[in-house]
């Protein structure tokens, strides 16, 4: 079927990517990152970043309000758990649907402007959603205490087939409980599907159209294309990705709070995408993994660990080095993140992927066979 066909290169990338994702518990072990909670986050935020990249990387529209869709996805999924069933599939489907509708409305309004105005419009809508979730919409969002499962939830479908169990239920897939490693593998499978779909979008004529919007929207409209429906489709797709990621967050931990919609959360996905490489397929995934790794590992460092790490430094300097570097880890890991981000934007606007490409080009120039060209990453523009 043509729908599922990929070019040979894309199929190879997908196969490699699948291998990397599936073996994640193995290769993360040396970094101390092989516990399920963190790997679930790796998969989930990779989906979020891939989706954001479909909008920003392909069309060049910089949205500063994508966390709103993540939040909507989470809320929808938790409501699906509360009202219908603990099965994950309906929750994911509903979340994608609702966040897609939400993105349709916001995108329709925001895409009437471009450039910085678009960024500010999306930011305004996201802040509106965040403020409303905290105040008036408390019956739906449960405000500051965040939405969570209770013992009195109706869960119509589940309770039609079985008795109410003891304690709070956990999310499941056809009766298999999704927690720990099984939760991770569920997220990983969803990630692979999302990655495959992104590959299809990148390779399709529709993807070409989006790239055209990025490089010169005016020329596109002079050639007779109405660009807005295409941009809107990209916006809705990326909103759906964000909703899917939000729903997966709810699957792994059935709790949805408004702080997921705050604009710093939107900023985070922008950071992930830029750090990895805008407009590339793999880049956003790497950015997401790197940032989540920083967040979980670096933020748990303390002076004791640092002191042992800097054991080789001679005594008079030792305390100073530890004191200075302790400002960059633990509570202060965001400082490291901010600095890294500034450096990337200044020196390497294409992110990690551009760095990889530059290093690759360096090696090719030294007379290695031209075969290496097959590994070339798709250019951003």
């Amino acid at each position, binding site marked *: 079927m043509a729908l599922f066909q990929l070019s040979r290169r894309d199929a190879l990338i997908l196969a490699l990517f699948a291998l990397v994702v599936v073996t994640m518990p193995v290769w993360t072990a040396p970094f101390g990152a092989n516990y399920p909670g963190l790997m679930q986050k790796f998969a989930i935020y990779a989906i979020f970043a891939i989706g954001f990249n479909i909008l920003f990387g392909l069309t*060049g529209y*910089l949205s500063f309000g994508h966390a709103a869709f993540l939040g909507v996805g989470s809320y929808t999924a938790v409501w699906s758990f509360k009202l219908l069933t603990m099965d994950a599939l309906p929750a994911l489907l509903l979340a994608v649907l609702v966040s897609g509708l939400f993105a349709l409305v916001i995108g329709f*309004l925001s895409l*009437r*402007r*471009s*450039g*910085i*105005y678009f*960024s*500010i*419009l999306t*930011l*305004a*809508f996201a*802040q*509106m959603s965040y*403020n*409303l979730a*905290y*105040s*008036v*919409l408390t019956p739906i969002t449960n405000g500051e205490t965040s939405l969570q499962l209770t013992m009195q939830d109706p869960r119509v479908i589940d309770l039609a087939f079985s008795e109410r169990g003891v304690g709070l239920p956990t999310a499941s897939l056809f009766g298999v409980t999704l927690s720990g490693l099984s939760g991770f593998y569920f997220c990983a499978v969803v990630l692979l599907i999302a990655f495959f779909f992104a590959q299809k979008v990148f390779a399709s004529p529709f993807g070409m159209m989006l790239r055209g919007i990025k490089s010169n929207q005016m020329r596109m409209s002079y050639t007779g294309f109405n660009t807005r429906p295409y941009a809107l489709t990209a916006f809705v797709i990326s909103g759906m990705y964000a909703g899917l990621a939000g729903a997966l967050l709810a699957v792994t931990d059935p709790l949805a709070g408004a702080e997921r919609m705050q*604009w*710093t959360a939107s*900023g985070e996905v*922008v*950071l992930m995408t*830029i750090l990895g490489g805008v407009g590339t397929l793999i880049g956003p995934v790497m950015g997401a993994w790197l940032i989540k790794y920083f967040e979980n590992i670096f933020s748990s460092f303390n002076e004791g660990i640092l002191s042992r790490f800097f054991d080789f430094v001679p005594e008079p300097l030792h305390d100073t080095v530890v004191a200075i570097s302790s*400002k960059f880890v633990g*509570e*202060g890991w*965001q*400082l490291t*993140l*901010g*600095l890294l*981000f*500034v450096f990337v*934007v*200044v020196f390497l*606007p294409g992110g990690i992927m551009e760095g990889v490409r530059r290093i690759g080009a360096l090696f090719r120039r030294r007379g290695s066979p031209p075969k290496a060209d097959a590994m070339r990453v798709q250019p951003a523009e």
Partner: protein
Amino acid sequence: MDAILAQLLNGLDKGGAYALIALGLTLVFGTLGVVNFAHGALFMLGAFCAVSFRYLITLETVTVDPTQTTAWGTALEVRTPLAQTWFGDWGAVLIDWSVPLSILLAIPVMLLVGIVMERGLIKHFYKRPHAEQILVTFGLAIVLQEIVKAIFGPNPISQAMPSALRGATDVGALIGLAPGALTYPLWRLIYFLFSAGVIAAVFAFLRFTTFGMVVRAGMADRETVGLLGINIDRRFTIMFGLAAVVAGLAGVMYTPLLPPNYHQGMDFLVLSFVVVVVGGMGSLPGAVAAGFLLGILQSFASMNQIKSIIPGIDQIIIYLTAVVILLVRPRGLFGRRGMMEN
């Protein structure tokens, strides 16, 4: 009538802060063409100038006085602020008035910060797309706020206003209402007057000095001014410093109203951008007018009568206004025709 006047006044001090930040944002955008997401961080830095100033002048010497004892029978520790030992009673006055006095610290510090920021980082981004300018200044804002967090800690540090300026003033009596009908906190009134003064000073500077004239000419046509043999880049750098000072002053004087915390810059930044957009990108009078307008709108929206008609309106009124303005009149209230209209 009184209630409406009271809400009008309530909006003025917040509007003043919005107007000052938006004024700086617009100055930077109009001169350098840079969208500065780190401008809120400058507001926050200004607030922490006040914190540092107070910290410096309240440094104490501790001497143990064996002749006096505490209730527990130990020797009493006498703490004397250095300022007091040096200046006597004047020291106490100095500490009492630390917030307004820290303006003296804030002006040179913010000017320096602004110039360093422009020369060190933002200079390299004039030719890059707006998206990259947003990204790099956003990164810078994170760095600045994390540095402040590392130094001052994550908790808000409240600053006392001078004792003479505490309490309320009877504004109603001034404009002929019955005494006591309309009272208003004195410091908020001062904040409004202060922001109006700063705004007037900035406009006068641009309007009545040769430097300001050159800058205005440069905003209109940078290339021609450069061809006339004027080093316009250097003047624009100074304007960036000035914008930083304006944001910093707004931050200093706002500290008694809102205890400074490291993330307040981000909170105000989002709102100030909305203000700039409503006023019209690149229009200085627009930024000021929209600042006060949105401040007042927000205080009206938080009236109980209005909240009972449209619940939650106080949370979203500013964003809603921005969305409506952008969709209906994209150049903003005072924007020039064709200025970033699509």
